[in-house]
């Protein structure tokens, strides 16, 4: 593995030169993470506190830079506080989706045959269900909390990863070095996790960024519909709660939407950049 780091680094640098999207995405994402950390560890203010009159217009400077919401809460504080739940829900959801997807895809691709048939039927079954509606039902089933929402999103978001992982395992398992390892007496577990997975990793890592964006957008949609956890200040929640008043005050809807947009864009750009770095075929570079 270490032997490969060098060409990766070179590719990274060349990718930064050819398309700066990865760097931009990474930087933007770091900013959002910093916001989340700041709100969690440094800023003790409760975003639910009513600090002023409702619907103060944004001034962009001064004590209430982004104005107040329908109750008179500081929108800037709400946005800062919204970063942490949004990111952590997305991270947990994406993690779960990746684990589920890779595990099922790997088993299906590696063993093939009956197991493959069974697992793919299972995957297809999940793909047929309209994911958002399914997630809405699941969230209603459990009482909404950041944990249940993250688990729900992870639970509905894994099928694309499973298909990708299956395809990769199917492709790699018959490559020469795998056959050689098998001939040398390596067990199935060793082959799957130590031999095939590292080689299947690049496209999976790229697809992980896609899963993260899906998770962020799903969390926002659920909160917007009022199915999220009402005691958690997430960006979707702010949009949903303020939507009724949007014709009087656009800012409590516009700013959290922008925050979601920029975060999703950052992750997409990161994914794009990673794709160029990890998969030399994807670009002429």
């Amino acid at each position, binding site marked *: 593995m270490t032997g490969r780091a060098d060409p990766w680094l070179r590719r990274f640098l060349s990718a930064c030169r050819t398309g700066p999207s990865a760097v931009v995405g990474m930087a933007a994402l770091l900013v959002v993470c910093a916001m989340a950390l700041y709100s969690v560890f440094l800023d003790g203010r409760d975003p639910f506190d009513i600090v002023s009159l409702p619907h103060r217009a944004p001034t962009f400077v001064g004590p209430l830079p982004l104005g107040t919401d329908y109750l008179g809460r500081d929108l800037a504080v709400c946005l800062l506080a919204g970063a942490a739940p949004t990111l952590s829900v997305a991270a947990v959801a994406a993690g779960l989706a990746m684990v589920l997807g890779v595990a099922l895809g790997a088993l299906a691709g590696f063993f093939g045959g009956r197991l493959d048939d069974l697992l793919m*039927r299972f995957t*297809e*079954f999940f*793909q*047929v*269900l*309209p*994911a*958002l*509606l*399914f997630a*809405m*039902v*699941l969230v*209603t*089933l459990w*009482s909404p909390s950041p944990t249940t929402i993250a688990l729900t999103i992870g639970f509905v978001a894994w099928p694309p990863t499973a298909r990708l992982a299956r395809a990769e395992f199917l492709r790699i398992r018959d490559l020469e070095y795998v056959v050689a390892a098998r001939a040398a007496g390596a067990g199935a577990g060793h082959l799957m996790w130590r031999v095939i997975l590292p080689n299947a990793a690049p496209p999976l890592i790229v697809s992980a960024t896609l899963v993260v*964006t899906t998770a962020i*957008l799903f969390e*926002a*949609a659920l909160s*917007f*519909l*009022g*199915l999220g956890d009402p005691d958690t200040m997430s960006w*979707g929640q702010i*949009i949903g709660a303020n*939507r009724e008043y*949007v*014709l009087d005050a*656009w800012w409590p*809807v*516009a700013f959290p*939407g922008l925050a*979601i*947009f*920029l975060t*999703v*864009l950052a992750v*997409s*750009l990161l994914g*794009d950049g990673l794709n160029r770095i990890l998969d030399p075929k994807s670009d002429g570079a």
Partner: protein
Amino acid sequence: MTGYIARRLLHGLFLVAGVVVVNFVLLRLAPGDTATAIAGEMGGATADVLAAIRADYGLDRPLPTQLAIYLGHIARGDLGMSHYFNLPVSSLIAARLGPTVLLVASAQIVALVVGVALGVLAARARGGAVPTLVTAFTTACHAMPVFWTGIMLVVLFASILPVLPVEGMSDLRLRDAGWITRTLDVARHLVLPVVTLVLVHLAQYARITGAAMREVLAADFIRVVRAKGAPERTVLFRHALRNAALPVLTVAGLQFGHLLSGALLVETVFNWPGLGRLAFESLLRRDYPTVLGVLLCAAAMVVVVNLLTDLAYRLADPRLRTVP
């Protein structure tokens, strides 16, 4: 070919049946009692009224019995009665199916046309500002939460630019007007929801078309066509695009499920009288038979669209057509 279709149909039925069973179980395990929801609407009810409601709807029977009752009804094409409206779920769905199909189909077609056009534009330019701009635009659109885009359009068109209706599917005051007026009215109402959905789904089509076109344009046979002196338009549309159509088709099929999810949010934002809003509002009312019905219907739609995509794929790809 017939055998293939039959196999695919059977497979689809199997998937739909699975959807029925799993969702039934999930929904019946859910907290929030239908009887209380109904009673709440009544503004206070006594214990015996609650008990009567439970008995009426079979809510007091064991779960497997309820499932058996439900499956028996489904087999006869009966999706059950809505707890809330006490009307057949199938009639509720029938009333909402049209608007959703109209919305999703319009969005799918517009997204395909515009997305492919952008992809061709980007591929033809080969370097320079155009591909970058196309990518930037579509990527940005793709990153926007669909409901937020919708709300922002509502704000824009409600007060600043009041030229298009921002809610509903038709103006009830025009319901006695001629069919041309009514069609135009629906078309006007359709604009903003469709634009919202299209913006989000452009990126996939543009990206896939671009990539496929670049690959095809680099192929030898295009060089031959060009060498024969064919005009650029013929090269692009007659030769290159036709060969790039397959991956686009695949993506269109895969996108359909996402489009349905997006439509659910768009319907909520624009008050579009479709299945998504029916499902959402029914979920809030704990009207399980209706939610189940919509889920089943949506899954069936995805299965049908996948099947059609498969068939179209077979017809479009000469290599697959010869395979029995």
